[in-house]
């Protein structure tokens, strides 16, 4: 019996997220037109909002399901395995954490009335002159490659110690929408004196933004581990069935060893992410460090597993036709979410230097 990956956190939520992910991925793969794809993504988005995913970790007295990190991990894991190209981690975990004290916006998010894109403090820009700045309640600047729900209604912007909400259809807001390389919807946001409402300001914003980013990084790791497990399964399946020179590719030691190496990297990453998840659930003082190490490792191990999947599939690995390859692109993209390797390494090295001093 070939390898089957076990979820870090399994259960009904995992299974549901995985099923919806597989359905969406399969349906999207059959659509060539970009506008039709966007419409399809919107239907799936409405479906998961209807199912209450966004309320998962919102407190019960705020109208949520009152779930915890492991409920979110089940969702993220399922979505990762199914390859669901929607901002699950951002919408179900990161935004609710940022908005925890802002009942009105939170409720609108939970009910699906607001479809919010998060523009983090460290958002990318094409030009340094585009740095976001606030002037008399007016926001100017740009942020590019922002993961964005289908048909976004708002952007939530972390700017310094301020948390801003900007309506997508407000004057002075220009959006260029894309599909990312992993199929998720994204957009470039350009603000030209757009009206922004400051919904919070101060140290609490900084603290919450840092926590939210770590939650995002951790759940992105969970999502990617889950996708990586599926990649190993599908690579094994392919090698067992693909016959060349009269024998299945799975008989070649070079390929078997490559898969063994993928598995070792996968296990190592899974161990680290599971540990970080446990650490975050129990809330120790070094949670951020466990998460930073996990995200750092994701950059290495995830990349290796994704690249090996492409390599082991030969020419087929260069096509968009296989789910394994689409998942490989998802893992590659995960590196750039919530702090890449350089960001995590910087934090950890600074911390080591501080402790040595």
């Amino acid at each position, binding site marked *: *019996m*070939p*390898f089957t990956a076990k979820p870090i956190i399994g259960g009904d939520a995992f299974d549901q997220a995985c099923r919806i992910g597989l359905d969406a991925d399969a349906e999207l793969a059959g659509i060539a037109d970009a506008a039709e794809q966007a419409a399809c993504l919107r239907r799936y988005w409405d479906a998961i909002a209807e199912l209450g995913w966004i309320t998962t970790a919102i407190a019960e007295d705020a109208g949520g399901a009152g779930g915890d990190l492991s409920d979110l991990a089940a969702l993220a894991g399922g979505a990762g395995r199914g390859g669901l190209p929607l901002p699950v981690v951002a919408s179900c975990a990161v935004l609710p954490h940022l908005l925890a004290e802002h009942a009105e916006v939170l409720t609108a998010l939970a009910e699906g009335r607001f479809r919010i894109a998060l523009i983090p403090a460290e958002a990318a820009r094409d030009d340094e002159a585009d740095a976001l700045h606030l002037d008399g309640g007016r926001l100017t600047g740009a942020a590019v490659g922002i993961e964005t729900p289908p048909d976004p209604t708002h952007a939530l912007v972390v700017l310094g110690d301020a948390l801003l909400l900007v309506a997508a259809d407000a004057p002075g807001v220009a959006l260029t929408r894309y599909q990312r390389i992993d199929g998720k919807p994204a957009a470039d946001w350009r603000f030209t004196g757009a009206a922004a409402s400051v919904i919070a300001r101060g140290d609490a914003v900084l603290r919450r933004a840092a926590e939210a980013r770590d939650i995002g990084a951790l759940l992105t790791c969970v999502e990617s581990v889950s996708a990586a497990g599926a990649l*190993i399964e599908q690579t*094994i399946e392919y*090698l*067992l069935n693909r016959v060349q020179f009269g024998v299945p590719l*799975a008989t070649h*030691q070079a390929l*078997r*060893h490559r*898969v*063994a*190496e993928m*598995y*070792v990297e996968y*296990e*190592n*990453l899974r*161990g*680290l992410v*599971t*540990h970080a998840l446990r650490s975050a659930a129990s809330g120790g003082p070094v949670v951020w460090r466990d998460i930073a*190490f*996990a995200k*750092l*490792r994701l950059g*290495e191990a995830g990349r290796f597993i994704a690249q090996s999947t492409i390599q082991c599939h030969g020419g087929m690995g260069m096509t968009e036709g296989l789910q394994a390859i689409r998942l490989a692109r998802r893992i590659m993209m995960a590196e750039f979410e919530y702090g890449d390797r350089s960001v995590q*390494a910087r934090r*950890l*090295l600074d911390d*080591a230097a501080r402790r*040595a001093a």
Partner: protein
Amino acid sequence: MVDYNAFREEVRDFAMTRCPPNIRAVVATYRKLSRKVWYPWQKILFEHGWGAPGWPREYGGTGWDLKQRHIFDEVMAECDCPPQYHHGLRHLGPVIIEYGSEEQKQRFLPRILSGEDWWCQGYSEPNAGSDLASLRTAARREGGDYIVEGQKTWTSHAQEADWMYTLVRTSKEAKKQQGISLLLIPLNSPGITIRPIRTIDGWHHVNEVFLDNVRVPVANRVGEEGQGWTYGKFLLERERLGGANVAPAMKHLERTRALLAQELAAPRHAMKRSLLEERLLMAEAELRGAQALGQEAVAATMEDRSLGLLPSVLKLSTSVTSQHVGEIALDAVGERLAPRFRPTDAAGANAEAPGIEWVQNYMYGRVRTIYGGSSEVQKNVIAKQLFGI
């Protein structure tokens, strides 16, 4: 219910107060461990009742559970105490306890426990390395004795050991795993020649052992004739959790971090230092992953769950990462120290430049992916399980 935190503190306190500083310094600076260093430490442990953490109480063991043993090993590494000399305590001892005669238990176990007897392992042969069952050293019966003829190799510590537990072929069977027996051979027996092997690290640890018509009493055979492979496997099964202890590798990493700070403090080394620190951080992330898996392995064993592929994964992961760490240390000191590897005007094999151990340790580290089931063998094992064929 054991209070593991209290236990950890007790072990730490013992390690820090009772392990002599000169012994800990040997570990901390990677100098070669030898019987001279190990024996006094084993004696201290023995006198405290901690001589054999892994043995049952009735044979002088501690009766600790697996997690306590794991904690003990971890703390020892964290405190720079030598890992206990394993051949008697971890390898042969458990085999004698499980399969040995009453007379053998009386005769050998107490002297292993106290550290009076030093054992080495006669397994590998020139043509039986990873493929151990191909061994050819033969023992034929002559009255109450076996006459042993053949050659062993990679025999660690034979130069300072009293005894060698030895796998020998007592009959030729269809299956090469059959017809193997386990003999306990005193190394001062007539007919034994021990020759050092010069290894790439410049340390003397392994030897060739030649057995030329060596007479061994039948009473020195453990268990049944022809069942040696079973006993050998029993020993390896017990060692499967060995890789779960990542603490020595973590300690190695911390020492290397301190080395970078010290060796590369000058401003002209700023770039080199920052590059090496970043590589070290990547290695730390990997080691932390292995550490988490090690904890999973200990928990699984405590709960009697199957370990599956964890031992192979741990072996592969930890060995490669340890090599990376060794390489980073080498890169820090190599320009200054690697040229001074071995003095040409001294007869001894060991170099004397202070800090040369970093270079030796790097070289020694290459063995981690070779011994105990090479990386390639581990990958075969993993692939077979993953592919189901």
